[in-house]
């Protein structure tokens, strides 16, 4: 028995299918005017990778600055602009669209047996909005940047800085609409475009979690939009809604902002959880343990996610009664995440586990997400929140969720579906190495920050007391390793586009409908509309299929 499930076709005879979504049409215009979800996903993949590396470069600058206690690499205002742009680019231009707009866009229609998303033009529009917003953000950065922090806290952002708040706000506003359209498209598609036999409880869990995330996008993002409009009005003509000098309440801004921005963290993590459900099932050859619980926990997170926003404001002087309620609800929202972790762990039970790259990233996700989730409880509990909030503890916490969780899941997904997307495999050994390097680099970068936060080092500091230096040096060293871990995939994935082995339709022998079509898929995904006649993750059905094929040949 070999220790891998990878099953590639005979390389001497195998060919990439002549007709696929990439070769269907040629020329730049055929890409820029496409309605094909897979091409739009490809456009998204290229653009978010670009923004990820911009955001990553800014993160590198932050870590370099923090190597020494003094603000010596850059002036404090430059540092403030750097971390602001790092936050804005990473959140609005990488994390929010990362899995949904790339993997989700690429896979969702195939997973439910549809030819395309319900609204292909809206899908394309959402990419153009994203690009317009991205260009605006880069323009902002080039013309002096912005130093409000990604949270745009009033009255700082409205009356006390003279950087490009308006253009940044506009960029975020437009990016918000891009994300609304993606979410809206997903919801419509999942409701209306499922193939015959694809009942709700036969949907892959990736679809469930993207559905939950889409709900958040559709319901949460508009509140951010109106908040930004009010900020812009406040800043330009001073309407006074958030200005205490005119009788406004800056806390109201916090309420409206976090009404979106807390659900936004679930927008960022839920699709990643979907990826993990797919990979962990495939590489343990087993149906996800407690499918229904995992599916419902996604929806539960989405719904509860709307009731907890004020936990970002515990020390801001909101009413203590509200603090109690929001803290209690925060504790409740932690439960579905715990359920998911244990269900994934038990999916391995009695499985037949192999350790290909996506699975390594998945293990990384599970460990880091557990730490990130548990430290979230430290912050949800009001008592410890007082000490830990606004310090590096919270920085470490959300990086464990966002980078350790979401980015690991994103990379797991990219490696998992890469052969489907391009028709070629990447080199396995080096990609496993990259996964391990990423994991080590990540822990070295962010674990010391928990200790820094407990010691009280505030976030967004360009200079800090010298006794914190040792841990900061660790963190910067880890960031360097992490950087290598992220550069490696770019290199070998690009290499694989031309030199990778031909993957065939189903290299992982996975059960999803997307694996039952050719790689790369056809423009309308399937030759004929599939009919779902089995449950999701039905490996026995798959075995059955293979036997059939063998006998029919």
């Amino acid at each position: 028995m070999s220790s891998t499930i990878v099953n590639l076709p005979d390389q001497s005879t195998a060919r990439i299918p002549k007709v696929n979504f990439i070769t269907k049409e040629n020329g730049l215009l055929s890409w820029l005017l496409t309605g094909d979800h897979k091409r739009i996903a490809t456009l998204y993949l290229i653009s978010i990778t670009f923004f990820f590396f911009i955001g990553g470069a800014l993160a590198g600058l932050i870590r370099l600055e923090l190597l020494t206690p003094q603000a010596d690499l850059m002036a404090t205002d430059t540092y403030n602009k750097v971390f602001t742009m790092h936050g804005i680019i990473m959140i609005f231009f990488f994390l929010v669209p990362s899995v949904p707009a790339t993997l989700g866009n690429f896979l969702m229609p195939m997973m439910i047996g549809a030819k395309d998303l319900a609204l292909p033009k809206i899908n394309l529009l959402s990419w153009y909005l994203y690009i317009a917003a991205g260009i605006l953000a880069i323009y902002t950065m080039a013309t002096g940047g912005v130093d409000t922090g990604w949270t745009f806290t009033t009255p700082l952002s409205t009356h006390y800085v003279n950087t490009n708040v308006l253009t940044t706000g506009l960029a975020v506003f437009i990016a918000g609409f891009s994300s609304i359209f993606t979410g809206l498209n997903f919801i419509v598609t999942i409701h209306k475009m499922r193939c015959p036999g694809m009942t709700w409880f036969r949907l892959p869990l990736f679809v469930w979690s993207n559905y939950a995330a889409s709900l958040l996008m559709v319901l949460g993002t508009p509140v951010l939009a109106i908040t930004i409009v009010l900020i812009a009005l406040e800043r330009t003509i001073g309407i006074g809604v958030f200005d205490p000098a005119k009788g406004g309440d800056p806390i109201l801004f916090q309420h409206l902002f976090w009404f979106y921005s807390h659900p936004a963290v679930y927008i960022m993590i839920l699709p990643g959880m979907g990826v993990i459900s797919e990979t962990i099932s495939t590489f343990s050859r087993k149906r996800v343990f407690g499918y229904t619980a995992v599916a419902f926990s996604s929806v539960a997170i989405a719904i509860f996610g709307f009731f907890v926003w004020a936990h970002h404001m515990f020390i801001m002087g909101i009413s203590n009664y509200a603090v109690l309620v929001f803290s209690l609800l925060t504790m409740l929202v932690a439960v579905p995440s715990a359920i998911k972790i244990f269900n994934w762990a038990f999916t391995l039970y009695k499985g037949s586990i192999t350790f290909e790259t996506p699975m390594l990233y998945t293990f990384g996700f599970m460990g880091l997400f557990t730490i990130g989730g548990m430290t979230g409880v430290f912050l949800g509990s009001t008592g410890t929140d007082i000490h830990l909030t606004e310090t590096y503890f919270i920085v470490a916490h959300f990086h464990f969720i966002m980078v350790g969780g979401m980015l690991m899941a994103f990379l797991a997904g990219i490696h998992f579906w890469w052969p489907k997307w391009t028709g070629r495999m990447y080199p396995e050994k080096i990609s496993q190495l990259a996964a391990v390097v990423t994991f080590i680099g990540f822990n070295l970068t962010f674990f010391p920050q928990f200790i820094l936060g407990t010691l009280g080092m505030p976030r967004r500091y360009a200079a800090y007391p010298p006794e914190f230096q040792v841990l900061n040096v660790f963190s910067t060293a880890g960031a360097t390793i992490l950087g290598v871990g992220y550069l490696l995939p770019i290199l070998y994935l690009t290499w694989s586009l031309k030199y990778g082995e031909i993957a065939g339709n189903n290299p992982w022998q996975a059960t999803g409908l997307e694996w039952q079509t050719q790689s790369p898929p056809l423009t309308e995904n399937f030759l004929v509309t599939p009919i779902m006649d089995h449950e999701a993750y039905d490996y026995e059905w798959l075995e059955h299929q293979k036997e059939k094929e063998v006998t029919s040949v």
Partner: protein
Amino acid sequence: MSHISPILWQFLVKWMTSFPLFPPEASKVAPEMDALFFFMVLVSLVGLTLVVLLVTSFSILYSKERHPVAVQVEGSTLLEATWTIIPLGLFLVMFVWGSIIYFRVYTPPANSMNIYVVGKQWMWKAEHPGGQHEINSLHVPTGRAVQLTLISQDVFHSFSIPAFRVKREAIPGRYTTVWFEPTVPGTYHLFCTQYCGTNHSAMIGEVVVMTPDDYKKWLDESTSGTSLAQNGERLFASLSCNACHNASAGARGPNLANIYGSKLTLSNGGTVTADDAYLRESILNPSQHVTEGYAPIMPTYQGQVSEEGVISLVEFIKNLNSDYRIQQTLNTTDLLPESEASPNRPAAPAATGPAKQGMVKQ
């Protein structure tokens, strides 16, 4: 060791010698919060170990070499219920425990001494009742509950003392409070933790905890001569507050003696406790806080009094124990120099110095 570069060597030495992993506990609430913190660390470690143990043991037991054919298991309601209910129970324990500490930190005891703190870009100004001013530092005695009344002059700031495990945002337009009881003399970090603009990272200072004797000495040395309440008294006079707020029969404004802490009935029918926040609001937005039986004729002082001015007015009104003082301010313009103010009763009836306009912004 000559082949190791001096900088790296220096770094390694530093690493070996001073490398704090946990902040000092210097307040009464700190050990309590740390108990919860370590409980949570423990739970997290147990949880993480459990997950890691499950994943590794399953990975070894059921790797493809050992276990070539997967056995399909649908799920287990019992197991799933277990890992729903146990975390939920633990989280609820943390919720209750955390809330108890939260309420402790933000509920100052009645006998605490009050220090006002004004945050502005980018400094902290502390105003002691005895008239001591400090910038970016705070001197407090051990063994006494110290309440901070915080406000910001411009943007959100956050007053954080990690060694005390307390933190509170200073927000514009409203007082917030926090309290602590220092236990260990020493010098501790004071940070602004809410991002507040360019020099956010320079908005730091030190909290000096002293023994009560040292503290008394410090108070004597650094007094500015007039207490906060006396400043307030001058302001009260110079803004002609006493024209209405006096004890005479038929005065147009309510008598302010002993008003602090009392329950007031407002003209709109509501009742309110006259606390710092109420007093501040009544100065700046009087029409919403008119006491029953009075006409809404008081002008607003928004834009005429600085936050420090409001603080001294509030402190003055707080310490008004008799009509005598109002009458006195009504009639006196030049008074005897100030005798020493004790920290406990900073505004003990005493004469005030010549009225200064320093607190009044034009």
